[in-house]
């Protein structure tokens, strides 16, 4: 049972990150970023290259992942948001364009890096091991939680205090209002997608501690991130954290009682039930922001 708790904590931290990335894009820019999986794998490869070519220092590798993620966010902004902003059939075209990006990206990784698994050097082995009841709190788990907390805090403080952050918050609340007070959507779009990418990039490095990196490794995080983001209510920060916890708990319990192959089945049941009861997710605050 203590293992369940440890797994839950670890997964909560990481799912929160991916879901925040997806949720922020939805709230601020109004599209579902289906290329999050490719951003994830790209950031993982970026961090892996940094750790093998530059330095395996923990800060450097984490920064490598975060920055690669942010660059990928900027690419999505340049190729999807800016060309399509204000054009007809916005919803289905952004969905298609991000899916196309994910198709392109995955195949480029396959081409350049091959299908082989890449593994990170353990980043957090210098941290001590803790005991939590019967379960051993591995350094990678401790490290993940600390790194997530630090980065999320930094970014939230940045969004809460900087001028760009003000634009981001305005845009997530009211698009017309933001335009009226002279906020440039394009500049803010870069910030939003950059921050999304940073979150996803960090998640990629952290999850890369437990899983291998391969061209398709972004797919499962994309699905899980979407589950969390949708469950929490797209665009809701608090909802994302609560939903990440629910999903992680559900996953850990399923792993413990039924085994890994049932994870998707129970997750899917969970989300179906929640969405049928509350179609806008746990937070359900979207009725007033984005339809």
């Amino acid at each position, binding site marked *: 049972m203590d293992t369940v708790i440890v797994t839950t904590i670890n997964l909560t931290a990481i799912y929160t990150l991916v879901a925040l990335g997806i949720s922020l894009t939805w709230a601020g820019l109004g599209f579902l970023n289906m290329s999050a999986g490719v951003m994830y794998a790209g950031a993982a490869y970026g961090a892996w290259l940094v750790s093998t070519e530059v330095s395996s220092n923990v800060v450097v590798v984490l920064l490598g992942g975060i920055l690669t993620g942010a660059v990928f966010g900027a690419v999505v902004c340049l190729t999807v948001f800016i060309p399509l902003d204000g054009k007809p059939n916005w*919803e289905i075209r952004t*969905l*298609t*364009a991000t899916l196309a990006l994910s*198709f*392109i990206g*995955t195949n480029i990784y396959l081409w350049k890096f091959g299908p082989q698994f890449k593994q990170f050097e353990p980043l957090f082995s210098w941290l001590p091991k803790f005991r939590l009841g019967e379960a051993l709190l591995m350094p990678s788990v401790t490290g993940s939680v600390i790194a997530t907390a630090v980065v999320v805090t930094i970014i939230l403080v940045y969004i809460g205090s900087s001028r760009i952050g003000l634009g981001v918050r305005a845009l997530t609340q009211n698009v017309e209002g933001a335009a009226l007070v002279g906020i440039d959507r394009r500049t803010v779009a870069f910030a939003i997608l950059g921050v999304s990418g940073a979150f996803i990039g960090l998640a990629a490095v952290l999850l890369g501690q437990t899983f291998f990196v391969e061209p398709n490794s972004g797919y499962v995080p994309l699905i899980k991130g979407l*589950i969390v983001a949708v469950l929490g209510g797209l665009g809701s920060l608090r909802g994302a954290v609560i939903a990440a916890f629910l999903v992680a708990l559900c996953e850990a319990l399923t792993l413990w009682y039924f085994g890994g192959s049932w994870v998707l089945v129970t997750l899917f049941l969970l989300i179906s039930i929640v969405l049928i009861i509350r179609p*806008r997710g746990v937070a359900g605050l979207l009725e007033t922001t984005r339809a």
Partner: protein
Amino acid sequence: MLKFSEDLKHYAVLAVVFVVAMAVPSVFGVLSILGSMMVFLLLLSWSISWRQGAKPSTDGKPDRSSWLFWVMVGAIAMIIPLIAGTPFLLATMVAFLIYLSMNTMWGLVLGTAGLQSFATVAVAGVSAYAAAYLSVNIGESNAALAAGGDCSGIRLFGIPLVEWWIAIPVASVVGLVVGFLISLPAIRLRGSYFAFLTIGLVELCRAYTGQDKCNLGGAGGLFGASSFIPSDLMGSLTGYRYAYFAAVLLAVVSLLIYWKVNYGRLGLLLRTARESEAVAEVLGVDVVRARIWVFLISSWMLGAAGGFYVSYYKTISPNFFNFSTLLLLFAMVMIGGINSPRGILLGTMLLMFVDRFFVDFSPPEARFVFTGLFLLVVTLLASAGLVSVPDQIRSRLSSHG
């Protein structure tokens, strides 16, 4: 009189283009017929739209002058088995027609109803699995698995083994049931939420079919299903001709259903609801009912297509639910233009051609990168797929004076 001679000139140009298009395969190999026909049909479609464009077109109006397009499609469909000297082209065409059948049904849900559903693959795949389960005895076809695992070989609920002509209708009923179940959340969920839920459903299907070794054969899937091709013709050119005409029948039925729904009353209701749910309800449209209907109709046909798939390939595996398959089908629907049967036909043809013609291309990923880039460029530039380009150019020109 002037009108007539203009038309004549138009048809003369088309005839020349057609002859050139027919000549291409003799230079570039037999498969390029798919590509050259696609280019020809695209040009034809563009010229029809351009000529129609003088009067503003809405996607709900029956395309009166598009008969020329469909006559040419029919003619090409008849020519292909005549000029195909090897089973290869026919096999490609059968795959194309199965995809076309699935894509037209997807077009009804995605385009006409405007519901962002990705459940198409799930419906077709589940029905295909049902058809395969009905006609495959896993104990016999996969003896090693039956011996190694703890599978008793007892069939669920004592379902008997049946031939393809029972399996396909049952598959379409299974499709109907699955479609009904999927339509239920569609009533409450909107836009991206539904897109996500249905993508999750496909992934769930993949995960489950990969797990169930005893009934569904696990990762290897089921093989050895009953086929509509007589066993002595299997693999021969005659056998493929047989399959080709069966697939043409499947695609024609799908297109007729598409036509009937899209240009009929149901299509009108669905489009009204798509544009504005509030307006539709004020007008007294029962939005929920209309959406359930479109799911039922399309899922029935998807079920039949899934059954057809199994009885043609004789096998089904969890790969059917792969994300890349889903993306390829989605790209096919989106590239041509989701709101028109011409667009769906052209998009499916185009990507089928790219997929098969560059199959030996090195590195193999380049083909997918190219497909993705193509989809991206078309999505960014054309507002509703390739077929909408003339309308877009016209409105761009008129807005600039």
